[in-house]
């Protein structure tokens, strides 16, 4: 009887005394959240203080070398913790010091060469989509000012700091006549020139959007091939130069609209065409700006939808990828110590069953903040492993307890050895670019295939891609140390 009491006393005392610092902090966080379902600035500051003042080595992961808090690591951990404890709370409910609204200007450039007239005759899905897109940008609150311009040989400023009414005017009143009236040399689309002009406007405070059909017009007496090559090189140089100076990201969105008007083929021969035609919206900005746009899913919400998307990212300053080695599923054996340090220790191959001699492990990776589409990361040809004997499969993460991670990568080999395994996500030109690229658009009136394609698209994209990926095309990199 007395023994029982003493036992309980001991247990209570000990479990009370032996609460780890981390437990104290997380319990406090839970307390904050149960109060008002969020963590506000004061509460966040008190948690930050507790971490700063603690000497516990297990909290070092949350601290930078100068003892200051590693904001994102801590926030991620908190979100994971709440999820594991079945407390519903999102990232936005936790106060973030980076909440300062970094607004930027959006400069819209609508190419108004004559080839564009077909997109604006009557009411087209082009008009609807662009109108809504611009409207969404305006009301999203991410832009300081929305500036509308026409561009062909030059930039023709239409509306600085456009209001909603102005956007309406910019788009809905588009008719070939207005296009004409609003000016410029509408004859030739010198894409390289257009790019150079638009790129010049892009900086920390300015995002640029270029809308066009992006059809090259070599002209009558020009060798189309040479022309395309030259343009490609020129574009590559322009982009490369810009990349040197800015963390330039390029988003290419392929859309479709009904077209009724004149199509000018590679020899500039006018062809009457009425039907569906692709057009493209290119968005230029730095990482934060493009992230913001992605976050708000503005592109995803385009009226009428889009066909394809591509984002080109600079590979100069590699970003660390948030990933985790899971304890399970695995083939073979390894211990849990060191997993958090991205080390697989005491690894052993499977010694029985159908997977004999194989070794496999699973990574949970967070591509949520990445700029490519989710499906990009599902394509195993977009990955490369330092040891070619590893087989990689990627799938969407459906495990709710790992909600912080978007994809699950499974790696398997038949030849386990101690090594530092590097898994890279590569920047590649997706297949749709090639299938959307035309080499000869002369028969567009009758060729159904041709009608979906854009002349010379391949050269365009390759040029840009070269600028980005010639040195290195590693977008994300993960390193896992395997020790037998």
């Amino acid at each position, binding site marked *: 009887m007395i*023994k029982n009491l*003493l*036992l309980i006393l*001991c*247990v209570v005392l*000990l*479990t009370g005394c*032996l*609460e*780890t610092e*981390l*437990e104290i902090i997380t319990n406090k966080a839970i307390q904050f959240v149960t109060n008002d379902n969020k963590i506000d600035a004061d509460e966040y500051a008190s948690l930050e203080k507790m971490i700063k003042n603690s000497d516990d080595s*297990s*909290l070092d*992961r949350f601290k930078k070398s100068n003892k200051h808090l590693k904001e994102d690591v801590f926030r991620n*951990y908190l979100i*994971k*913790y709440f*999820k*594991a*404890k079945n407390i519903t709370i999102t990232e936005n409910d936790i106060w973030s010091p980076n909440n300062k609204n970094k607004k930027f200007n959006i400069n819209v450039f609508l190419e108004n060469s004559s080839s564009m007239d077909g997109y604006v005759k009557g009411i087209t899905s082009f008009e609807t989509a662009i109108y809504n897109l611009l409207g969404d940008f305006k009301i999203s609150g991410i832009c300081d000012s929305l500036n509308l311009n026409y561009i062909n040989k030059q930039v023709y400023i239409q509306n600085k700091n456009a209001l909603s009414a102005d956007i309406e005017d910019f788009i809905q009143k588009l008719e070939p006549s207005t296009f004409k009236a609003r000016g410029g040399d509408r004859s030739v689309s010198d894409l390289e020139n257009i790019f150079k002009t638009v790129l010049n406007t892009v900086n920390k405070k300015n995002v640029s959007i270029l809308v066009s059909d992006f059809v090259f017009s070599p002209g009558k007496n020009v060798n189309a091939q040479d022309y395309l090559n030259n343009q490609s090189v020129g574009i590559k140089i322009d982009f490369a130069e810009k990349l040197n100076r800015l963390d330039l990201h390029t988003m290419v969105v392929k859309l479709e609209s009904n077209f009724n008007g004149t199509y000018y083929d590679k020899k500039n021969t006018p062809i009457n065409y009425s039907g569906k035609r692709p057009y493209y919206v290119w968005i230029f900005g730095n990482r934060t700006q493009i992230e913001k746009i992605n976050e708000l899913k503005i592109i995803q919400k385009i009226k009428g939808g889009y066909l394809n998307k591509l984002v080109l990212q600079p590979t100069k300053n590699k970003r660390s990828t948030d990933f*985790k080695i*899971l*304890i*399970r599923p695995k083939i073979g054996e390894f*211990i*849990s*110590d060191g*997993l*958090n340090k991205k080390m697989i220790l005491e690894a052993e191959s499977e010694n029985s069953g159908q997977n004999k001699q194989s070794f496999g492990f699973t990574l949970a990776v967070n591509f949520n903040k990445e700029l490519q589409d989710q499906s990009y990361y599902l394509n195993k040809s977009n990955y490369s492993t330092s040891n070619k004997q590893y087989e990689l499969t990627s799938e969407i993460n459906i*495990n709710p*307890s*790992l909600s912080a991670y978007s994809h699950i990568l499974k790696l398997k080999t038949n030849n386990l050895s101690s090594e530092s395994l590097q898994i890279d996500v590569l920047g590649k030109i997706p297949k749709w670019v090639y299938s959307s690229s035309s080499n000869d658009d002369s028969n567009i009136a009758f060729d159904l295939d041709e009608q979906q394609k854009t002349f010379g698209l391949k050269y365009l994209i390759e040029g840009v891609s070269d600028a980005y990926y010639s040195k290195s095309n590693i977008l994300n990199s993960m390193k896992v140390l395997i020790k037998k």
Partner: protein
Amino acid sequence: MKTLFSGMYDWFGTYLFYSKDMGDHLNGMDITCTDFIGTPWYMIVGFIMLILTLFIYAIQYHIYDKSRFNKKHHLWIMMFVNLLLNFLVATILASNSVKEGYCSELSLTTMDCIGFGISNAIWSFIFHFIITSITVFRRLSINCRNTTFWKP
């Protein structure tokens, strides 16, 4: 201290009585599966085990310390009590911690909890045996100074 207990229980206990996953959980794998920064159950149970064993030893040898309770079968009775208590402590603490939530990548069962209880009970027996075998401690007792597992 933490590594001492971890080493002890992992060396004899894990794989034999309960799974490696349970071992990871008891070592302190936290609920988000980040690292061994959660509750260090090995250390807690280890401390309780040591203190309980010492206490039960002290009751017989120093606090009660009578000639009517100093034979070897009396020691066996105390050892059994110690075994039982430590089994209960370990099993209950382990299953409570499992109920409260654990890293989802681990698979833990009730048998693991019971297995840990058995392992802790065996360790408590070992410690009890050692303490009563070392003359230095026993010597302070009046009636039990020569009471060990084997005699009287």
